[in-house]
């Protein structure tokens, strides 16, 4: 066995071989699936807990505060305490709600985000499924999450929830377009939808640099529209606190609320990882042309660290958005999408296609 933090391929092959040697084929596959499932679930939970903590610290520092600082050093275990509290909290029974859908909704939301994380490459060889349609798959799966929000809003039998759900429906359906189109801009440049190939294509330079201005514009549009698609401020109309109390999850409590909460942060993590992978080179280190020494130092940093660093940078930018801007109104939200983002995006795709045709990219 040859374990290396720079390339997990041989490690994975070793596990695969070990299982196949010792178990019948069916059980080998089953055990592999369980291992991957548990690993992703663990990662999911840990990242979710950390993101909640990070969000609180980031917003606290932006607001001249200290943030959580009571539970553990620098309040590091605050989210774990919150999680325990949410687990122990009573699940309020809503009398006139549609119980089946009410209970189902948080699961749909969390399953959708859980499915999307499977296609994301964390490092070389650390990749659950490497679809040839990776980007399309992620777009497809993440579009399922809105169903959960709609169901939650409707089945709570609460007017605030219903308004929140309707806003969210209009918002996500229209912003999916921009997310898709801005990714298509890069797909044109990369010539593939497979995540591993997209990352590999950025070995000699990240796409955001390779694609000149159109790639940068696509990145900005992706940031804006993915912020909207994950229902985060300033696009948090679905749960607009000052207008709709808590929007679609007004009636949820305890662990069901925690699911929504976790799913929101994980969706943020997923779109940030896509942004990191597609625009910022995924786990590829940062290289500058012919500076061999510099490039060598960059290579020394493990790919997983590169991936996590880029992802958290994008997440930090999204948090920065949220804690700076006031919320948009629903009509402004749609104006932004249909009048600004979509036309710019379409023109951007054309320019990118032209650049690729002429071979002007690096």
């Amino acid at each position: 066995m040859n374990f290396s933090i720079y390339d997990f391929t041989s490690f994975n092959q070793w596990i695969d071989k070990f299982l196949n040697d010792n178990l019948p084929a069916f059980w080998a596959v089953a055990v592999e699936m369980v291992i991957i499932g548990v690993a992703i679930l663990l990662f999911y939970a840990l990242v979710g807990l950390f993101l909640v903590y990070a969000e609180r610290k980031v917003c606290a520092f932006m607001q001249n505060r200290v943030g959580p600082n009571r539970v553990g050093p620098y309040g590091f275990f605050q989210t774990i305490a919150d999680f325990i509290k949410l687990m122990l909290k009573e699940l309020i029974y809503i009398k006139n709600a549609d119980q089946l859908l009410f209970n189902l909704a948080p699961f749909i939301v969390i399953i959708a985000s859980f499915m999307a994380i499977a296609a994301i490459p964390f490092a070389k060889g650390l990749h659950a499924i490497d679809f040839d349609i990776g980007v399309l798959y992620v777009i497809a799966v993440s579009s399922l999450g809105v169903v959960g929000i709609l169901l939650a809003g409707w089945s709570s039998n609460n007017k605030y929830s219903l308004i929140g759900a309707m806003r969210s429906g209009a918002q996500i359906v229209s912003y999916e377009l921009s997310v898709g189109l801005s990714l298509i801009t890069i797909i044109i440049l990369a010539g593939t939808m497979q995540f591993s190939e997209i990352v590999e294509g950025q070995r000699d330079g990240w796409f955001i640099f390779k694609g000149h201005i159109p790639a940068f514009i696509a990145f900005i549009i992706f940031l804006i529209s993915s912020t909207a698609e994950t229902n985060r401020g300033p696009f948090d109309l679905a749960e607009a606190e000052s207008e709709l109390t808590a929007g679609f999850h007004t009636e949820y409590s305890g662990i069901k609320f925690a699911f929504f909460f976790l799913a929101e942060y994980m969706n943020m993590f997923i779109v940030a990882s896509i942004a990191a992978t597609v625009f910022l080179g995924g786990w590829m280190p940062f290289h500058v042309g012919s500076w061999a020494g510099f490039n060598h130092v960059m290579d020394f940093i493990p790919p997983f660290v590169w991936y996590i660093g880029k992802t958290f940078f994008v997440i930090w930018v999204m948090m920065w958005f949220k804690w700076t801007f006031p919320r948009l109104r629903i009509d402004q939200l749609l104006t932004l999408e249909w009048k600004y983002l979509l036309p710019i995006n379409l023109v951007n795709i054309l320019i990118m296609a032209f650049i690729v045709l002429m071979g002007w990219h690096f």
Partner: protein
Amino acid sequence: MNSIFEYFADIFHTVKSLLTGMKVTGRYFFSPWEIVTQQYPENRKTLKMYDRFKGEVIMPHNDHNEHRCTGCGICETACPNGTIEIIQAKIDMPDGKKKRIIDRHIYHLGMCTFCGLCIKACPSDALAWGQEFEHAVFDRSKLNKTLNQPGSSIIKDIVE
């Protein structure tokens, strides 16, 4: 043509204004020395209230366990909320006359609105503001305080 120009001018202005806002939050994010939060229980030792801080009404006693309150009841009438209750006792003076003195000066902290009228009204300056501010208790009856300490007496030179 003009409308196209406006379209892009709009985008430019919006982006500029948004970046201005982001500059503010971004600057504070990277300047943690500007944090204004006080970490309360930790800074208890260094936390100092202003001299005039109205924490609660107290009755200062001197070293001989003496106070200045004559029990006249002016503070009781001055108080708008009925926070102060004066319970008087009668003692026999050496010259045979009966004299009324203070038995208990009861102060209901839970009802006090800290208006300061009692302190202002007191003719013998028996009352003052205390600096104590940690008033939280589990039992409401603990908020009913007797201001004159047990066994205390009035300072001799106070003339009624």
